[in-house]
């Protein structure tokens, strides 16, 4: 499935004061993870004596669950999703599952992470938590010295110096220093831990490629389906429309030919009928052609075609077009139909009085923005027009984003990959 990133997560979802407690919690979890690490490491050699198999089937899912919890939690610190790059067993069955688990590199990376997290991750989290806790500790230090018996809290730095109730006040600036360090580094330490986790829990390059291949295969299958459906529609339209009309036309002509000497008036009527059905057939063919590939797109490219579209719209549409040369025909066609559909939506549902279309080429991508000043509330729902465009663009690895609050305005942002090298300069129309 193609995922479209519509909203970016904010960098940090937690309030600042929750951080030390999260850090403490993560540090404790990191040490609990050690248990899972040990069990995993032990269970592998135990496969030889069969005990390892059930053990592994319990430990690995537990470790995955544990890792997934971390993926979700740490994503909050990273501000981006950490994907779950596990292989799916190709067939059902206990042994197949075991095999998949054992051959999935991510299983081993998870186990390495358990160890690294218990050592490095634990240190980072603990440091972050301790900095804050030290602040609290030294703020109430004189009180602690006052209420506890002599000798419990009087040697704050391991006997390096000894304080009494009064001199303990001199240590309060330590609270300030600890607080400042925590302020500056507390969040970074947590993020460092999150990055560390991502490098082991996130997908490797090859896993990323595998995911990409799956995505592309899905979108290709969908494209093939859409194309086939489109061909069926064209076949049906031709068969039920133009073809039938032409057959009737030729029949009428035959009848008129046969009748022309006997009954000229009747023959003339038949000829008129024949002419009318020829015009209808022509106009049906015209509509069909427009649906396959609009002639104006072939003539004038995307620029002219979009302008023509804007012109036939019942309200004012401003067009900005800034693309050097012409995109490859399939991209051009996809872009045209996407813009046309957006504009048709605006006409049908938005009650807009003006709209605007902006098409530019940047970063090897065709950027298309269609906006209107209507009532908004446009959503992508399966089977809807916007969904159709999204699928159509997905076939080209393009994306669609809709911003449409319920009071309007609506903006549809579309992107289609289109390398500069494939942009052809329009052939000059001869010297004539």
């Amino acid at each position: 499935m193609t995922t479209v990133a519509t909203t970016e997560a904010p960098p940090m979802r937690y309030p600042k004061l929750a951080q030390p407690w999260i850090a403490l919690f993560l540090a404790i979890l990191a040490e609990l993870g050690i248990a899972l690490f040990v069990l995993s490491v032990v269970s592998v050699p135990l496969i030889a004596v069969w005990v390892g198999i059930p053990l592994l089937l319990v430990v690995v899912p537990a470790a995955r669950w544990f890792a997934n919890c971390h993926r979700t939690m740490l994503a909050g610190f990273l501000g981006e999703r950490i994907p779950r790059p596990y292989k799916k067993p190709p067939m059902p069955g206990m042994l197949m599952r075991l095999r998949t688990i054992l051959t999935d590199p991510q299983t081993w990376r998870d186990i390495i992470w358990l160890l690294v997290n218990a050592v490095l991750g634990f240190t980072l989290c603990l440091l972050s938590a301790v900095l804050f806790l030290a602040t609290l500790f030294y703020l109430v230090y004189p009180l602690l010295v006052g209420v506890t018996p002599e000798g419990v809290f009087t040697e704050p730095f391991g006997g390096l110096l000894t304080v009494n109730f009064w001199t303990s006040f001199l240590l309060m600036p330590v609270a300030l220093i600890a607080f400042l360090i925590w302020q500056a580094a507390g969040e970074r330490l947590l993020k460092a831990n999150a990055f560390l986790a991502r490098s082991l829990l996130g997908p490797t390059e090859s896993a990323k490629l595998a995911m990409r291949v799956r995505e592309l295969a899905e979108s290709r299958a969908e494209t093939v389906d859409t194309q086939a459906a489109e061909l069926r529609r064209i076949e049906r339209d031709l068969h039920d429309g133009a073809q039938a009309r032409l057959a009737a036309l030729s029949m009428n002509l035959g009848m008129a030919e046969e009748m022309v000497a006997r009954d000229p008036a009747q023959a003339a009527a038949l000829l008129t009928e024949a002419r009318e059905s020829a015009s209808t057939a022509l106009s049906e063919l015209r509509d069909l052609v427009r649906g396959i590939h609009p002639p104006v797109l072939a003539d004038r490219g995307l620029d002219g075609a979009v302008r023509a579209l804007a012109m036939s719209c019942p309200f004012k549409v401003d067009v900005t077009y800034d693309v050097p040369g012409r995109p490859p025909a399939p991209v051009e066609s996809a872009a045209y139909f996407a813009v046309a559909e957006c504009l048709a939506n605006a006409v049908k549902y938005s009650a807009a009085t003006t709209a605007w279309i902006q098409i530019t080429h940047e970063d090897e991508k065709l950027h298309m923005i269609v906006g209107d000043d209507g009532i908004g509330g446009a959503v992508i729902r399966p089977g809807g027009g916007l969904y159709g465009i999204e699928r159509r663009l997905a076939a080209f690895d393009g994306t669609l984003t809709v911003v449409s609050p319920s009071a309007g305005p609506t903006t549809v942002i579309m992107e289609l990959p289109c390398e500069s090298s494939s942009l052809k300069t329009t052939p000059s129309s001869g010297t004539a």
Partner: protein
Amino acid sequence: MRVLIAEDHALLRDGLIRLLEAHDFEVVEAVDNGPRLVPALVEHRPDVAVVDVRLPPTFTDEGLKAAIEARSQVPGLPILVLSQYVEQLYARELLTGGGGGVGYLLKDRVSNVAEFLDAVRRVAAGGTAMDPDVIGQLLARNTRDEPIGRLTPRESEVLGLMAEGRSNAAIAGALFVTEKAVSKHTNNIFAKLDLPPSEDDNRRVIAVLTYLSSR
């Protein structure tokens, strides 16, 4: 009347020649490609040229471009453009050259011989012949803030027929009203579109053209 034809389909070209010659037109030349068209137009200076939009070698809007080019070299050269489909964009481009003597019709219209010949003669006489499809699209626009929005439905109807290039008599015939009623409507249209009375008979053409090209 001397006619020049530009059409690449042999069947259609022969049909057009036959049709026009049967009605006392003299076909001075029939070209079948774009590059040949402009020199032929400039050389023969026909009374009217019937030109297909799509011509070799590019099979895009070759004919339309040639028509515009020829009209810039020979101002007012009457050209009737025929096309398999009509596009407002093209109508506007043809008309922005200014003046009459232009037409833009769907190829289907040829089948109604009388109307087609009428259109050819109108263009030759310096009038216009716009396809009802173009005019229909134009008038169907939601025109809340524009002068054309102030027209009554009947007046829009009259403007539509006027835009196709028809005379008051023809409009009266089409709408089953008296010619006097039509001229009353046209005066109202001119008033609403801020076109002051003048001797210029092209005011009716301008009424539509200004609207078309102001978009």
